[in-house]
């Protein structure tokens, strides 16, 4: 009586294990396929000319230098605005605010804000910024500020909470005022949170296209940073969309894709490095 049951169970076990192995295999294969596919299709198209020139309709040459610069400008402009806002808000909520209910409402709102589809940010950004200033990189940057504010705020907050209470007590006990305690004892302890938030935000800005399609425009002109922020321009992701969808230049699109992919990997690496380094310092 027992023999057939245990055999059945054995088959069941082996079958389930095989199915899970299949799931893992498929996942790994898909990721690997995507990576290899993009690299194989993209890397051969990356030439010095592509990286260092702007497109010319006369000669039919395509260069992505303007898009690289635009991406850089938008990253800088966004961070310059979002950092003081996000870090400031985090400090207020963790160190100053006394009404815990309002704090948790704001935290909850930030949580939701970071889950909203980016195209909605684009739509709002277009109405709020582009229609009032013009379609330009700055309008795109301001839209990205709203998108990244919750990230910077939350990572800074989490890291502020790891600064031991005893440090604050020690400083207050010496007669230090609130701001001095925050500046000299609390903030130095949460640098890693701010850096992690920055890196995550850079990753998000690099990968953003939907919000920028609405707000920052499609131009491929080489400008300095001030002029660039005031004029319309495509970032790498937007340029990828334009070259692939509007002009059918798949080689260029894949070249950009490969560049973005490498940047993403670098950013992931940087995040873990920062976290590891500070974790070591803490212990």
């Amino acid at each position: 009586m027992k023999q057939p049951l245990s055999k059945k169970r054995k088959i069941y076990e082996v079958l389930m294990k095989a199915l899970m192995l299949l799931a893992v295999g498929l996942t790994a294969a898909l990721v690997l396929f995507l990576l290899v596919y993009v690299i194989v299709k993209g890397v051969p198209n990356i030439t010095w000319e592509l990286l260092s020139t702007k497109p010319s309709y006369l000669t039919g040459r395509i260069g992505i230098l303007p898009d690289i610069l635009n991406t850089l400008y938008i990253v800088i402009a966004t961070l310059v605005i979002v950092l003081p806002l996000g870090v400031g808000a985090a400090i207020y909520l963790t160190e100053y605010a006394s009404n815990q209910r309002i704090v948790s409402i704001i935290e909850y709102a930030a949580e939701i804000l970071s889950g909203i589809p980016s195209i909605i940010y684009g739509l709002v950004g277009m109405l709020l910024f582009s229609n009032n200033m013009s379609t330009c990189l700055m309008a795109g940057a301001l839209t990205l500020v709203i998108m990244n504010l919750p990230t910077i705020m939350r990572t800074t907050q989490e890291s502020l909470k790891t600064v031991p209470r005893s440090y604050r007590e020690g400083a207050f006990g010496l007669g230090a005022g609130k701001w001095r305690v925050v500046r000299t004892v609390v903030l130095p302890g949460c640098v890693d949170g701010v850096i992690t938030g920055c890196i995550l935000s850079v990753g998000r800005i690099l990968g953003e296209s939907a919000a920028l399609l609405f707000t920052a425009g499609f131009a491929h002109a080489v400008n300095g940073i001030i002029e660039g922020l005031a004029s319309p321009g495509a970032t790498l992701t937007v340029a990828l969309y334009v070259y692939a969808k509007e002009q059918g230049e798949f080689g260029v699109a894949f070249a950009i894709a490969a560049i973005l992919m490498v940047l993403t990997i670098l950013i992931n690496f940087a995040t873990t490095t920062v976290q590891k380094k500070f974790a070591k310092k803490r212990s």
Partner: protein
Amino acid sequence: MNSIISVKDMCLWYGDHQALKNLNVEIPEKSITALIGPSGCGKSTFLKTLNRMNDLIPGVRITGDIRYKGADIFDKEVDVSNLRKEIGMVFQNPNPFPMSIYNNVAYGPRTHGITNKVQLDEIVERALRDAAIWDEVKDRLKKNALGISGGQQQRLCIARALAVQPTVLLMDEPTSALDPISTSRIEELILELKEKYTIVIVTHNMQQAVRVSDYTAFFLLGELVEFGRTEDIFSQPMDKRTEDYITGRFG
């Protein structure tokens, strides 16, 4: 005896819970007063009221009168920073800041506006000498304070508190996290500091209270049961509860 801090009819509530009930006590100047009593009796809470560290805890309400050198410490005119400069504090667990030994000690003076390098050097050296740790750290003032031993960290914290030149030093179980050797060094130090400072020390350890203090206050369930000279409290307590506690019948 001259009293430097006088407490009258003081009560303290955490929300609805009354943690301290009608305390009346005079803290004598340039002497060591030990606060003893079982866990949760309110002795640490009382200590932290004296330099208004309880202000940092939401929901704390205090009634009654506490005077430092005759002035009401809860007066609206009182600058809490200056009060805490006069009445310094050493905490239960050593809590040096994650910065250099020098910067730890210089933190207080800098907070109160001293920026002159020569003057700071002087203050730091004197504070470290007064805290009996100068010889151990003089060659590594620029090293991170978290790298020294727990006992050294606590003496550094005492130096840090001394550097703002307080008059009163509050100590909240300063040796409870330390080994016996570090403990005895800190006790010797406390006895030396009595020359210049008024010290109020919370301790769980009754032998410690006997060894270092001149006066002892026994707390129980938020009440100050008995206050008097340490030798009197430990040899002929007036209250039955004090006797039960010091003879180890509870606690």
